[in-house]
């Protein structure tokens, strides 16, 4: 897949289309064998989904798994007859995990590839940087980012996040369990940038509502590669360390925490974002044994996994340990990538509701998406049931709390959707289309 910009799994597996970049997308299409007949008949032409992928830059570890999950979902959708009877084709452009390039890529999808939608962005700054381009091009933009940006209603009417719960909701739904099971005095350690600020801002009120409190907040600059010097700021009476670190330095963080505390440590509660794509059995992570993590979708296969979850894992190609089948060292980003799968099924549903025919129906697609209210657990939504708030373009689902036990993550608690609901901050549907 690496060398190919497009893939159409239902037809010939990976369709090689390297000779693209005709001035018009139509010309490019005509050059590729196997696509000629589509240009005659609009009704059977594939639905084109522009996938804004982090192939290079800081997000590259996520981008690869997002691509894998997307490929699996598209394969499944196409095998079942596609969307509105049309096959789905995914066109990938790398955004370099850069907001400037991200906006250019959205423009490229809109004006050169002429895709029907743009999809798949993870990193928040790329989402926010690309959102204006999506709005101006009137291009429905389905992100899988978990940031609170969409639900904040600061973006625009064309941006949706229907496949993964936003971080504000995630944090809020963790509070009851932490207060009841881990401890009442919580010290937070988080990166000193926007992703960390969500945790900084949303956890204290949520804990307070549960009778617990945040006694210290330690923000760590994003450029930091060593953390020990911050640990003395952790108050001695801390019962729970709530940690959420991202980026390549996170292993160091855990190891140094281990060296600092040894076996005599407070409870640990972390967000899986820290260890996505990282083997939980890496040297130095023994320290995490017995600690708890938020997980979006469980990395390890659980005893009570639904049939849908099992089918999803098989389709994406991850084994019981959440690593690539055949390569146990290639650990997936299970907590987030399910969002790609589910988002594509939301797109499918909305397109079918809207009777979507082509780019001229994009406004109808937006309205049809906004009209959605709930997604039932099942093959299309293997992570669990969700509700969808069309006014803020955001879905809300259940969250998992898992314990590290014997080198695996075992789900010990599932939150309720209601735990994560909050007051809407605005209403996109009042904006013009």
């Amino acid at each position, binding site marked *: 897949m690496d060398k190919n910009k497009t893939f159409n799994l239902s037809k010939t597996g990976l369709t090689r289309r390297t000779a*693209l970049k005709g001035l018009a997308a139509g010309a490019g299409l005509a050059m590729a064998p196997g696509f000629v007949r589509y240009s005659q008949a609009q009704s059977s032409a594939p639905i084109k989904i522009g996938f804004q992928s982090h192939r290079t830059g800081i997000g590259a570890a996520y981008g690869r798994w997002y691509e894998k999950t997307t490929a699996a979902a598209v394969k499944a959708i196409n095998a079942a007859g596609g969307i509105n009877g049309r096959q789905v084709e995914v066109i990938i452009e*790398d955004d370099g995990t850069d907001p400037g390039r991200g906006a250019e890529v959205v423009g490229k999808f809109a*004006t050169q590839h002429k895709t029907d939608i743009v999809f798949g962005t993870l990193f928040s*700054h790329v989402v926010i940087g690309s959102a*204006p381009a999506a709005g101006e091009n009137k291009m429905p933009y389905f992100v899988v980012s978990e940031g609170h940006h969409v639900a904040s209603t600061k973006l625009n009417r064309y941006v949706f996040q229907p496949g993964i719960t936003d971080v504000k909701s995630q944090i809020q739904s963790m509070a009851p369990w932490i207060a009841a099971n881990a401890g009442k005095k919580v010290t937070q350690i988080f990166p000193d*940038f*926007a*992703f960390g600020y969500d945790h900084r801002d949303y956890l204290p009120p949520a804990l307070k509502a549960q009778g617990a409190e945040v006694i210290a907040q330690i923000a760590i*600059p994003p450029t930091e590669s060593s953390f020990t010097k911050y640990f003395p700021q952790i108050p001695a009476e801390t019962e729970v360390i709530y940690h959420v670190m991202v980026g390549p330095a996170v292993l160091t963080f855990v190891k140094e925490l281990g060296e600092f505390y040894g076996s005599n440590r407070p409870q640990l509660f972390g967000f899986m974002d820290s260890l996505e794509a990282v083997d939980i059995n890496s040297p130095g992570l023994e320290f995490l044994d017995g600690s708890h993590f938020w997980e979006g979708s469980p990395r390890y296969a659980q005893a009570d996994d639904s049939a849908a979850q099992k089918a999803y894992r098989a389709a994406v190609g991850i084994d019981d340990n959440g690593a690539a089948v055949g390569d146990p060292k290639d650990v997936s980003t299970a907590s987030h990538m399910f969002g790609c799968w589910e988002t594509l099924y939301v797109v499918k549903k909305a397109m079918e509701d809207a009777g979507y025919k082509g780019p001229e129906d994009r406004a109808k697609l937006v309205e049809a998406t906004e009209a959605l209210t709930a997604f039932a657990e099942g093959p299309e939504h293997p992570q669990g049931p969700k509700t969808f708030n069309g006014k803020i373009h955001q879905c809300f689902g259940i969250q998992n709390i898992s314990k590290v036990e014997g080198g695996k993550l075992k789900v010990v608690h599932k939150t309720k959707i209601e735990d994560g609901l909050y007051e809407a901050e605005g209403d996109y549907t009042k904006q013009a289309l």
Partner: protein
Amino acid sequence: MSEASPAKAYALHLGIIALLFVLSFVLPEYYHGLLARIMVLAVFAMGYNMLFGYVGLLSLGHAMFFGAGLYGAGLAIIQLGWGVPAAFIAGIACGAVLSLIIGLLALRTTGVAFMIVTMMFAQVFYLLILYFANWTGGDQGQVVPQPARVLDFGATALDLTNPTVRYMTALALFSFVLLVTLAIVRSRYGRVLVGIRENEERTKMLGYDTFSNKLMAVVVSGTICAASGAAYALLFGYVGSSFASVQYSILPLLWVLLGGAATTIGPLIGTVFMYYVIDVTSGYTSAYLLIVGIALILLVLFFPKGILGTIRQRWLGWLP
């Protein structure tokens, strides 16, 4: 620089502006949008070239000037609710003030120390954006709302999010800065700057206050870069810290070196070239940075003075 052929030079520059104008009507949609962006960033490169090409001062911190314009204009709209013209001026003013302060400090150093000092000031600027995240939006950045990006003239309104308006606005800014650059370069002041680049000690002994002249150049350069940043915020609707990161300090250097330092049109050519290489190669392989890297090395091996610099050296000596 010589007195010869001013007409030729002006004709060439007006021709390029005319070409860009015509391109607006013939380019396919995608390249039309891309070129608007390139023109705005070429202004950034031209501002950089002012200092690097003509005065010989290699700064690794120009992202802060671009960022000053970007945030000056963007935050004026987002936080203060100002209109587009006021925001644009605010962005430029931020760049002018910042470049004056930075110039006063950094010009006490020369050579590599100047590189490092400018880089460090830019790093401070970048960290300040993160530190005041409540205001700036930090690393995630913020969207400049689409309804605010309209130039209201009472009777008519120019919507900066409209592709044609955006292209023409970018072209207007680009043309203005191009002609200003040309005028500066051909002026007596431009000759003094080149004198400083070639031999500062000698220029001083001809009675020039080289510090003031360099300071002036830093301010002009920083202000042009800020104009580019302000235009970027207004035309493309996003302000974010990545535009103030060290990468955006290296990019204009790269564009200028590719196109040809100390040529007026080189920055545009370098920017177009770099964008084109990335756009084309990223279509073939995700390892496009590899190709970009190889292209850079080949270019510097075989076109050591940049594309236009080499052309000037070999064929067209009159190019400004």
